[in-house]
């Protein structure tokens, strides 16, 4: 456990801070390539997925986790140096107010918003009320042309037992998967790992990635934000969640049983994830080609109300432990062989 823990602690800050808004994941691909050195054969596909292959004689297993993060695209910048943006991903505009936007070459700008008359302090904020302060006046238009893609700058922090960052949703799963790959070097599967691009735009990378690999079995590692009545029974810090049902997805019984056995073999306590309105890449992968038996393990996280979320360090480590046990091989049905 301690190796997993130190691996996650070393990986996560760098992954959180890497540039990688949906569709422009170059920075996080680079960070992952470095972290994955020596763990398998790496490749990229047309959608921008980073893939790792570790050949084995067993069934073809797809292990998938998203790697993209929230971002903005400049729609115009006027002569005062103020710009308008459209959002990449599903974050509520109000969460992004006050965030620093960083562009691939390191340029920065600030996201503010028009507090119109009668505004309810931002609760009803629409994306077209956000503005980008470039600080450049007239030169802004040339420096930030229409179509420039920026990411929300993350300044990850460790607060007690919690990891706190703007990109927890896209990167905590990556850290857990990399740590698991380092821990379980021998695999009984023909293992394909997809660090999926454009997940925040509707599981686009998972769609093409799963088609390309044509797996016999898939496990999705993701983050689930706990909020509202639906997920009120889940606690951050009480272990990884096994996905039973979410929007467009129900767990495949055999794939789920495999995860359960991996959890019990790794002595990891789990919780159940059941939700109607949100979903992960599991939905796209289970429907790939003629269908793929798919299971989901999700790291629970809390939203702060602003750009960052909070995940418990132990939940991430235990997710890694569970996945590592799965890759190393778990006892077959019946348990005690």
């Amino acid at each position, binding site marked *: 456990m301690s190796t997993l823990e130190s691996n996650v602690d070393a990986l996560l800050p760098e992954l959180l801070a890497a540039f990688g808004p*949906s*569709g*422009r994941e170059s920075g996080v691909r680079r960070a992952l390539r470095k972290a994955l050195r020596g763990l398998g054969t790496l490749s990229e*596909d*047309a*959608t921008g*997925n980073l893939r790792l292959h570790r050949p084995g004689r067993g069934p073809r297993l797809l292990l998938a986790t998203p790697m993209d993060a929230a971002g903005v*695209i*400049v*729609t*115009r910048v*006027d002569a005062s140096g103020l710009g*308008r943006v*459209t*959002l*990449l991903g599903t974050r509520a505009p109000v969460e992004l107010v006050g965030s620093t936007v960083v562009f691939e070459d390191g340029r920065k700008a600030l996201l503010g918003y028009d507090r119109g008359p009668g505004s309810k302090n931002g609760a009803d904020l629409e*994306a077209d009320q956000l503005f980008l302060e470039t600080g450049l006046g007239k030169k802004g238009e040339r420096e930030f*042309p*229409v*179509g420039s*893609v920026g990411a929300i700058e993350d300044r990850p922090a460790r607060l007690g037992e919690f990891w706190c960052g703007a990109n927890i949703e896209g990167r905590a799963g990556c850290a857990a998967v990399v740590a698991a790959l380092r821990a379980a070097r021998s695999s009984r599967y023909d293992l394909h790992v997809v660090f999926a691009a*454009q997940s925040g*735009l509707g599981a*686009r990378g998972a*769609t*093409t*990635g799963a*088609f*390309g690999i044509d797996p016999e079995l898939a496990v999705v590692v993701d983050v689930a934000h706990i909020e509202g009545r639906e997920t009120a029974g889940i606690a951050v810090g009480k272990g990884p969640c096994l996905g039973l049902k979410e929007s467009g997805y129900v767990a495949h019984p055999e794939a789920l049983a495999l995860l359960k056995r991996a959890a019990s073999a790794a002595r990891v306590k789990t919780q159940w994830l059941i939700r109607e309105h949100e979903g992960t890449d599991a939905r796209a992968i289970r429907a790939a080609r003629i269908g793929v038996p798919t299971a989901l393990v999700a790291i629970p996280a809390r939203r702060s109300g602003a750009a960052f979320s909070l995940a418990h360090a132990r939940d991430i480590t235990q997710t890694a432990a569970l996945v590592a046990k799965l890759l190393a091989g778990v006892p077959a049905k019946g348990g005690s062989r």
Partner: protein
Amino acid sequence: MIAPPFDDALLGRLSEASGVSGGEDAVRRILIDDVRDHVDTLEIDALGSLVARISPAAPRSPRSKGSRRSRRGPHVLLCAHMDEVGLMVFAIEKDGRLRVRRVGGIDQRILVGQVFRVGASGLRGVLGALPPHLVSRPEREKVISIEDMYLDIGASTREEAERHVAVGDYACFDTAYEKWGSTRKGKAFDDRVGCTVLASLVKKRPPVPVTAVWSVQEEVGLRGAGAAARRANADVAIVLEGTASGEAPGASPGESAPLMGGGPALTVQDRTLMADARLVDLLERTGKERKIPTQWKRPGVGGTDAGRISLSGAGIPSAVVSVACRYIHAPAAYLDVRDPQRVTALVWHTLESLRKEWT
């Protein structure tokens, strides 16, 4: 090589043809006649899309297999959709009036009083509603819903109407194609202008292997393109579109892009697509090198066949090049004919660049 000319006359014929989503036959027939002698294979796929394959001319001097392969360049999917927004007859009233529903996105504010061509015979009808003096004052201020309109073909009984029209018939806007200087007026420029650019390109054998798809049912959910792309299994895709220009009195300068007459409009992102960054860069660079002005389509809005194509199979790097038209999805649109000429040239030269440098 010099880029092919844009076929203005073909745009006129295609614009006047009826082709509401799912009923693209007339448009397809015109395209078949136009391109059949210029392509290697031509077929209609299961959903109705017209699919042509064209290989580049064989190099003059025999070369080793390897070098010829590398010179052929990537297999490029070029796609434009044949269908347009319109109406469908869903019931015929006792008094001979037709009840209709919209096919694709049409703004209800522009419908009342418009003349439509109904069914295969092209019979004309007016979209009517209660006149203002029979409507209460508050109701008069509201947009009339399509459910309160009817298509009037002049029949006075159901039996009379049924002699000319059947439930399920399509109705399209009745608009003549006209030329005023470099301006062209007509219906369905979204996406007959793309269809015409695509035909203009394939009639001069392109420099790379091309699968040309004139797709069906784009306006009702990008349906035809996904299936065609899956079969074509291309390396790269470029979608040719007619898109909305933004200029109008009261529009702020920043909101009005792209502009009619402003050159090919390139997409970075829309609701369905993150355009492939390398491909967008190549299009922009080719425009600069060839002195073809380009402009950016406003990010965040709209969606095209490219969304579906980019996610087909294991994924295809995709981009969209559009002609900015005023008043799309309405009875009459305008475009500046220099724009599709420039789109034709830009895509042609981009195909040449793809052959040289795409890996």
